[in-house]
């Protein structure tokens, strides 16, 4: 059985065409801007916790892990290196092209915490990497930095506020 998926690592897209045999062997053709290649392996072990053991045709084992689906993204670990991959069915990818949030100016933190200091205000021009605010989480202060250059359009929190992970704190336009 064959299926075609578009995958992204950061913004680099590649199409993956899968061929799976019932005994756990996978042959995949990958097409991207850098060319076309084929990989094949056997899924020798697949655990409910996401662990996989891949075995190449030459018998070499590679430990891997497939993380849970988080809004279309998964953390995939291959040989202990974490790689975040988005995957969409090829047809869906074409239908929804252009509406993903990559490179947006939304500033957020991954975990809940408390805003201890704001370092930028509406109208400030900021550089990529410039600290925007300090959030305390796990008893440590962390500087939240701008992921792109731009002008602060809005500040949606105040000093002392508790914030949830993923909530938009500032917007950079």
């Amino acid at each position: 059985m064959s299926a075609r998926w578009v995958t992204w690592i950061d913004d680099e897209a590649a199409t993956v065409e899968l061929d799976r045999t019932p005994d756990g062997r996978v042959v995949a053709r990958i097409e991207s801007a850098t060319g076309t290649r084929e990989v094949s392996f056997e899924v020798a072990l697949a655990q409910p916790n996401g662990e996989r053991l891949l075995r190449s045709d030459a018998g070499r084992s590679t430990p891997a892990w497939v993380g849970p689906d988080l809004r279309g993204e998964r953390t995939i670990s291959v040989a202990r290196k974490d790689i975040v991959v988005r995957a969409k069915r090829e047809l869906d990818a074409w239908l929804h092209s252009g509406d993903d949030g990559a490179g947006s100016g939304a500033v957020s933190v991954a975990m809940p915490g408390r805003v201890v200091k704001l370092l930028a205000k509406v109208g400030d021009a900021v550089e990529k990497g410039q600290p925007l605010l300090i959030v305390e989480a796990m008893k440590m202060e962390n500087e939240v930095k701008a992921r792109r250059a731009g002008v602060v359009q809005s500040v949606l929190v105040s000093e002392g506020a508790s914030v949830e992970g993923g909530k938009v704190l500032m917007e950079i336009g």
Partner: protein
Amino acid sequence: MFKRILIANRGEIACRVIRAARALGIETVAVYSEADARALHVRMADLAFCIGPPPSRESYLVGARILEVARLSGAEAIHPGYGFLSENAHFRQECDAAGIVFIGPSASAMHLMGEKTLARRTMKAAGVPVVPGTTEPITDMAELLKVAVEVGYPVMLKAASGGGGKGMRVVHSEGDLLRAFEGAQREARNSFGDDAVYVEKAIVGPRHIEVQVFCDRHGNAVYVGDRECSVQRRHQKVIEEAPAPSLKDETRRAMGEMACRAAKAVAYEGAGTVECLVDKDENFYFLEMNTRLQVEHCVTEEAFGVDLVQAQLIVASGGVLPFQQEAMKPLKAAIELRLYAEDPGLNYQPSPGPLQVYRPPRGPGVRVDDGVVEGDIVSSIYDPMVAKLIVYGATREVAIERAKVALREYTVHGIKHNLELLAAVLDNPAFKAGHYTTALLSEMAFVPAAASEAERDLARVLAALAADDAARGAREVVSDRAQSPWAEDGLRRRLMGLGGLG
């Protein structure tokens, strides 16, 4: 000896104390916040009581509630672990008033050592060398500017009630002083409820070496060797070893004797640690005394063949210290590597989350002190340390090799962690040589290895496979048949691929 004790802590240290108590035939009482209802320490203890909502200040820091549980459960003593109430002199007094033994030093010893400027004055009076700087807290900027010039840049700002690297800032010039002062005060206030800050001269290129001391109420004071703790990030320890490598025997002895002098100056009882800064000429300065069991006590245990937690229980119940100074010679080299839920590639930002996969290593010379099992959630409200891997061997070289094997075997997924950073330190030439300073980690400038093109391709295929499975509603990627890699067809095909079979 006690019949039942309460452990006023969580995580790996609570589990560690439960094991030590059990070995002495003592029953254990766990306390837990609502967030920890299913935590390992709760499952291990003989009795367990919920003491409040998740935030520490509403649970693990509420001394009155913990004492109430102690009374209710018939516990005769409380082991505070490290952190939380372990260095809280007021809690110790409440224990005394309630007739419950606090396993640790007296309130006065805690007070004398706990407030750092007072400790500096006390140590100076006892003839213990301290780092040049102020012996009084500093409250305003003008005074700070003046003192910083007197002491000379670079200076170190520290929280007077501090510990664990919180409220600490190195300042290299006057221009950075205000922001650092505000930051240190804020962090000190939030962590310790006291924003007093003091100034020390920052020793350039120091090693952070500490001495384990142990005193009983019968006049015995013993130093159980030293620990090298210079591998730090954000002033928090990451790797510790015992004994400290590359230290002259006479320095070791002088530091040990100084540590006993410091402990005696405050009539210390139980396990304590005297932290020192050691410069390149092996001049050492008293930094502070931690009046509790340290996180890294395990390296001393493995190197010297002692059980410090059991000794704490013996000494607290009025017994005689179970080891003498003459016997305290290191038998092994031991290294502790702390597993943190944090992202070393992103300025060590904490990374709470579910431990989707958690499999600690095994093997000769390997000890893992942890308080989690697979499926547990590393919460954002507590410390990001997940576990301690302790490795030991006849020599430091053997211990390092064992550590490398163990790190490779340690499997953790679902959170960002520092296992690759730890492995990189073991390969660092300065670390291998045993000559390194607290600047090691920042100088290493660790960058996580990037995935190769082939690994990225595999990741894409695995993501596509997972999406494909989800789309089909399949629960498993492979059929039962493929679960057994040695199914006849699979083996035959692989051997054929290798050219082994015709």
